């Protein structure tokens, strides 16, 4: 939780620094609205269960036209699926920070696509219990735990903004993120800030992709 506050403070500092600019450039504060929803509604089907993900965003137009700065932070706490006793559920907790430089590509006034890229920094910990059936000598149960797992990555995405009224913005992004983490004793199923990592991309090298739907409010 402490890390989350620190990251939020960092974002506030950033936004203060940028707020000196002219009033013609817009700024939005937003929140990811679908990230944790499926894990609560469909805990059995979705790849994570009962997970809290809070992802606030800050969007700010840059002085150059069609350029935008995107700052995001996040906190995730939950667990993954239990597949087998030896492929157990992983309880994870982590905080992350992302920044992106976003470019608006205009082909015609109706077709607008936003492309963004930037760094992702995440710190997470996870733990769980694994179990092997022992019909002859009794079952074996072991623990695994990794704390302060730091990951650095690069994210790239396509995005689309939909204006709702004067002040609201619905934002949809398709994202790709890859990076490396410091400690990799146990393969990770979900890395906060990166997302679900498929087999082969879940050891020291992490790769993930996904969708994000955010709702934003105009603040300047």
């Amino acid at each position, binding site marked *: 939780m402490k890390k989350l506050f620190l990251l939020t403070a960092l974002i506030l500092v950033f936004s203060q620094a940028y707020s000196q600019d002219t009033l013609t450039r817009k700024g939005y504060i937003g929140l990811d609205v679908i990230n944790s929803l499926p894990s609560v509604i469909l805990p059995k089907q979705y790849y994570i269960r009962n997970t809290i993900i809070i992802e606030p965003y800050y969007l700010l137009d840059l002085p150059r036209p069609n350029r935008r700065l995107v700052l995001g932070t996040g906190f995730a706490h939950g667990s993954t699926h239990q597949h087998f006793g*030896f*492929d157990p559920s992983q309880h994870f907790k982590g905080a992350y920070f992302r920044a992106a430089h976003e470019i608006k590509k205009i082909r015609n006034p109706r077709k607008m696509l936003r492309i963004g890229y930037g760094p992702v920094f995440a710190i997470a910990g996870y733990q769980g219990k694994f179990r*092997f059936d022992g*019909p*002859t*000598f*009794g079952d*074996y149960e072991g623990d*695994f735990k990794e704390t302060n797992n730091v990951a650095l990555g690069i994210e790239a995405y396509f995005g689309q903004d939909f204006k709702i009224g004067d002040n609201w913005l619905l934002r949809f992004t398709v994202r790709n993120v890859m990076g490396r983490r410091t400690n990799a004793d146990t393969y990770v199923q979900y890395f906060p800030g990166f997302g679900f990592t498929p087999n082969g991309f879940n050891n020291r090298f992490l790769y993930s992709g996904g969708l994000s739907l955010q709702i934003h409010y105009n603040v300047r």
Partner: protein
Amino acid sequence: MKQLFPIALLLVGMIQQGCIDCGPQAELTARVYFSQDSLQLDSVYALKAVNQNAIAKQVKAYLGQQSELELPISMLADTTTYVFYFKDRIDTLSIYYERVFRYKGDCGFITDARKPSGRHCDATFSNVDVYYDTYARSGSLGFPFANPGTGISIQITL
């Protein structure tokens, strides 16, 4: 040709998946061979076992056609002791190993046993040789010459 590329990629992926050695991911077994069974084995019991069924099954198979006994080893200790009942003789065998539980990609946690730093066995047989091999070979096994880990084998001379 271009359309075939994703299919080819998928096939390569499937072959790769099929050749990762996860080991048994269950209670491990040691294979026991007797150099000659002139004494006629009657039954085998493991100490500290909660259920002897798996061992009884193996003895039955051994008395039938099977050339070796596959005896479960304990995941709860680095040693397992067996008592062998022959027609007019009783022998004991303790084997030692070092348990390994680790995470392996595409498998989840795997269980393995390796050569201990100390002695390999204690036995009342005239000679016992214990051979150690991993139960789960590391990395991909490489199609098509898959060579999975064979685990612990024990050669007993009565």
